[in-house]
């Protein structure tokens, strides 16, 4: 049913991706805009402040917002170009239906809605409620995230709701909950300023969170030492004091060895460990054999560098440890995260000025979105869907019977597996492009083709949406009011700069309409976004992610409020744990043993090279938005295979030669970029592209047992030079690849 209705090329011709450029003299009216709307970037977790210029209900440009405290006008290339989406030729302007042989043709809202509702009912009556699933995403505001969570449980009555945060920082979330009982970066970024030592583990900050660089450099101006842990010499690593070029998949061995070094050399904060933590002994027992020599053997990092790093970390008076997807996208992502946290807890440097720790959340609302309930095991306020008290409280807020509240559902990749197995028959998606962003994309495609009904809400026809039966044109971030929570835990205001163009509607109104047609209008009637936020506040009250004291007005007056903020007179909490009262059941911070385990797939004779994946600065996630912005595409037009000259020589690979990269799951062809800035045993491909240029054809669907995050960052591959030099990058059409 959900195979493509026409050849993919035809869909691309009509719906893009097409590259959008600003006209030579800018969009008309740029010079005299009707309004400059103070809002935030739609992309990463930094949520930089930006002013959008609006003329005649169109976004025509931007002006830096100098007053917003995190970025003070600073932006990355994506932020500068973000204004090109509202005025984009690919923008969906009316509902579309799939017509076999014709492709996607416009249809009326009424027909699209009727069809959707009748299919939901048909599938749920025939196969059960849980056979209709929902996939969501955390580019959505807090209001929409909350609404999606409620919609799935109350209107769809399915347990199978999950979100693309599953591919983001769930390992960090799980690790933080284990260690602290709460999932948020412990500090805001101004605590970086006077940190003596900063560890950046698996976070390509200068490409994925460019505006955070300012805070790191600021610390270095004050003399901070920086330790970068990454298999590649990323821009941050070039000037780092120590670059630990870790072999992909061996991070926990490194942290284990560093912890052992701290213990052996008594670089510990005994007072903190004794009074405020638990689990220390088991944790150090688990690493008692992790000598520097052993670590060098496992991680491939020179032991002297590991020692130096441990010395720096051990002796520091203030410090900050940051990590991101590099250590989290693993079948042992949670182990890696707790391994980092163990280093922080062992030195007691948390809950004080300039003593910080945190994951850098990737998506725009990766933080807020993961707190309010579109995660398969979670309810608003970061509550547990299996905890009877939590279920009871939220059921009351929602006005439903607790027995009708579905239980824990499947995670994102597991939903795809269940579709593949034929257990799930229907899917509604919003803000998620799994065909590009999930691993093992050939398998994902097979699953999509098995769906009986798929309805997609999006503003562009993303690659996954090409498999849909109905596509509902939703709204861009700047087309609806709301809030997001940045990676620092700062709740901020997203402004509606313009209304959705054409027949497109706001995401909220679409979800409310479906809910209404499913017969639960009474539970889905809101005056505006603020009304949804106010319900969210109540729903989060008493949870760990407590937004109760945050109002739109307070956010606007203070340029953001840090949760937890239980009451309206509470100032918010930029720095957690100053009271040393952790949110774990025993009130203590927990050490967790993190013994080293092998990654899900290791190299062998057939697949002798380690493959790792990641991002480039000009693209964002699955590229639905950024592969449509001309200058961002031109900056890095196609995915390249980064390979060290020694490995290249071993395979007889020349610069820009086309290389067939194969794994047990698929193969793809990429031009080689021979650089000394990567480990000799590892190759790297960025993942933003689709189809034949997708790195996720190669990656495995191995999941972390706790966080269910897929192992994007390590697998085994084979390289085959094709004896053909690639045409120049600027001629590449990878952005639209089918």
């Amino acid at each position, binding site marked *: 049913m959900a195979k493509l209705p026409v050849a993919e090329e035809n869909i691309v011709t009509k719906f893009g991706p097409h590259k959008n450029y600003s006209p030579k*003299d800018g969009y008309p009216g740029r*010079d005299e805009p009707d309004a400059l709307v103070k809002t935030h970037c739609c992309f990463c977790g930094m949520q930089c402040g930006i002013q959008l210029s609006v003329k005649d209900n169109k976004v025509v440009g931007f002006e830096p917002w100098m007053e917003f405290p995190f970025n003070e006008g600073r932006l990355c290339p994506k932020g500068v170009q973000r204004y090109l989406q509202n005025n984009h030729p690919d923008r969906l302007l009316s509902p579309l239906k799939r017509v076999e042989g014709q492709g996607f043709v416009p249809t009326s809202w009424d027909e699209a809605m009727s069809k959707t509702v009748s299919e939901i009912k048909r599938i749920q009556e025939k196969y059960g409620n849980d056979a209709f699933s929902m996939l969501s995403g955390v580019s959505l505001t807090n209001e929409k995230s909350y609404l999606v969570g409620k919609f799935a449980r109350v209107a769809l009555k399915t347990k199978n709701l999950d979100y693309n945060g599953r591919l983001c920082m769930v390992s960090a979330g799980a690790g933080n909950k284990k260690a602290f009982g709460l999932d948020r970066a412990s500090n805001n970024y101004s605590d970086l300023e006077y940190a003596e030592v900063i560890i950046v583990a698996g976070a390509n900050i200068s490409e994925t969170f460019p505006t955070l660089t300012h805070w790191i450099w600021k610390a*270095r101006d004050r003399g901070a030492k920086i330790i970068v842990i990454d298999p590649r010499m990323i821009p941050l690593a070039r*000037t780092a004091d120590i670059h630990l070029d870790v072999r992909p998949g061996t991070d926990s061995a490194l942290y284990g060895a560093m912890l052992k070094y701290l213990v052996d050399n008594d670089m510990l904060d005994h007072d903190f460990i004794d009074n405020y933590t638990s689990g220390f002994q088991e944790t150090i027992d688990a690493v008692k054999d992790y000598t520097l020599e052993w670590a060098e053997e496992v991680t491939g990092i020179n032991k002297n560098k590991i020692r130096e790093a441990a010395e720096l970390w051990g002796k520091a008076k203030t410090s900050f440890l940051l990590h991101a997807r590099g250590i989290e996208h693993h079948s042992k992502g949670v182990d890696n995260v707790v391994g980092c946290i163990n280093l922080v807890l062992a030195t007691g440097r948390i809950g004080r000025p300039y003593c910080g720790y945190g994951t850098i959340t990737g998506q725009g609302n990766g933080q807020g979105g993961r707190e309010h309930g579109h995660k398969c095991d979670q309810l608003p306020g970061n509550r547990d869907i299996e905890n009877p008290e939590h279920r009871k409280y939220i059921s009351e807020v929602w006005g439903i019977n607790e027995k009708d509240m579905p239980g824990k559902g499947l995670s994102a990749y597991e939903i795809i597996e269940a579709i593949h197995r034929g257990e799930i028959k229907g899917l509604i998606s919003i803000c998620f492009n799994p065909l590009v962003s999930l691993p093992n994309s050939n398998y994902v495609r097979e699953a999509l083709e098995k769906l009986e009904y798929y309805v997609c809400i999006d503003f562009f026809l993303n690659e996954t949406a090409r498999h849909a039966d109905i596509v509902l044109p939703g709204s861009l971030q700047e087309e609806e009011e709301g809030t997001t929570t940045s990676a620092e835990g700062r709740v901020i205001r997203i402004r509606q700069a313009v209304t959705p163009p054409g027949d497109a509607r706001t995401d909220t109104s679409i979800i409310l309409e479906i809910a209404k047609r499913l017969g639960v209008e009474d539970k889905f009637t809101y005056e505006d976004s603020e009304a949804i936020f106010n319900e969210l506040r109540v729903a989060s009250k008493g949870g760990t992610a407590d937004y109760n004291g945050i109002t739109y007005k307070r956010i606007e007056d203070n340029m953001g409020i840090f949760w937890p903020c239980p009451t309206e007179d509470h100032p918010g909490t930029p720095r957690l744990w100053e009271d040393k009262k952790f949110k774990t059941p025993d009130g203590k911070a927990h050490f967790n043993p993190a013994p080293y385990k092998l990654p899900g797939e290791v190299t062998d004779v057939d697949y002798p090279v380690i493959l790792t994946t990641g991002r480039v600065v000009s693209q964002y996630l699955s590229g639905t938005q950024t592969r449509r912005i001309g200058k961002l595409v031109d900056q890095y037009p196609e995915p390249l295979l980064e390979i060290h000259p020694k490995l290249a020589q071993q395979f007889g690979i020349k610069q820009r030669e086309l290389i067939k990269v194969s794994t047990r799951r698929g193969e793809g062809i990429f031009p080689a970029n021979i650089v000394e800035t990567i480990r000799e045993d590892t190759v790297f491909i960025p993942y933003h592209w689709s189809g034949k240029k997708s790195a996720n054809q190669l990656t495995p669907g191995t999941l972390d047992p706790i966080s269910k995050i897929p192992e994007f960052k390590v697998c085994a591959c084979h390289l085959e030079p094709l004896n053909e030099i690639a045409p120049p990058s600027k001629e590449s059409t990878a952005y639209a690849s089918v």
Partner: protein
Amino acid sequence: MKNKTYNTKALLIATGLSIFMIALVFFGSRKLQNFDAALVTYLFGTVFAFFGIVYRYSVWLQRPPTWIYFKRGITYLVTGKVFSHFWFATKESVENIAFQKFIYPRGKYRWVAHFMIAVGCTSAFLITIPLTFGWIHFAMAPNTISTYEAYFFGFKVMDFELGSIIAFLTFHALNWSSYLVIFGSLYYLRRRLTNPGLIATQSFEGDLLPLILLIAISVTGLGLTYSYQFMKGFAFDFLAVLHAVTVIMFLIWIPFGKFFHIIQRPAQIGAHIYKKEGMKMGMAVCPHTGEEFATKLHIQDLKTVTEQLGFDFSHEDGTSHLDLSPEGKRSRLAQAHLKARLEGGNLFG
């Protein structure tokens, strides 16, 4: 850039050529027989403009970078395959001088407007200058009452019937030019008054005044026509003076202001020939990037020119900073900066 207040060589050339020009006026108008005394103010204006243009042009040519282009351009044009060079120069002139094709990529409307001004101005010059010099005059053909004859330099070039289309077009040619100039100039005026980038960088005398002058000339010129055709000569004298004043201002302004680009533009073709010929002699390879980036001739000449201008980018080992491509220069600067930073012991702070 380091000019003294006047330039003797240029003064001599300009004076000589101006005398020659006056001689041409004298003989071209058959010893002033065909000269229209009413146009004498225009004649002085034109001669003064001519003097100024030649003077400025001569000063300009003497600048080392200009001279090298001029010299190379002329040399290449007359050596080797002369015919093919002239063909190239002609093609280039049509494309770049007549049609100004390089403006098109900057903006379609900008090109259209510029082309309108260019055509309007050129045709107006072609008509008025020979008229002023007495090189063109019209006379009734002997023994007819309706046939006009046009003379150039005292020689008959054509005749036409009064009331014919040719007559209409010929007698109104200046009006057509005026309309083209007005519409073109209005487009640019609007652009200069609304585009923030231009507003920030333009000056009144350099950018706005020339457009206003063009419009003023055209409007007063048209006014003259309409005054005697439809308004029985209303304010004709006033308009005539106003027209003369604007035209003479325009003429005098040519050597000093924006309109000098009309005279200067052929240098562009010189630059194209220079590049084309230079490519035949081989490309310079950047020692940093290892890629070709300019012609060897260009880099060689620049070393000479910069030296003449008082810049010395040579290193002690005989190489020059100018051997590097722009990217190479930027990279070498960054490497030098990295080295200095590392030697200083700290990359930050």
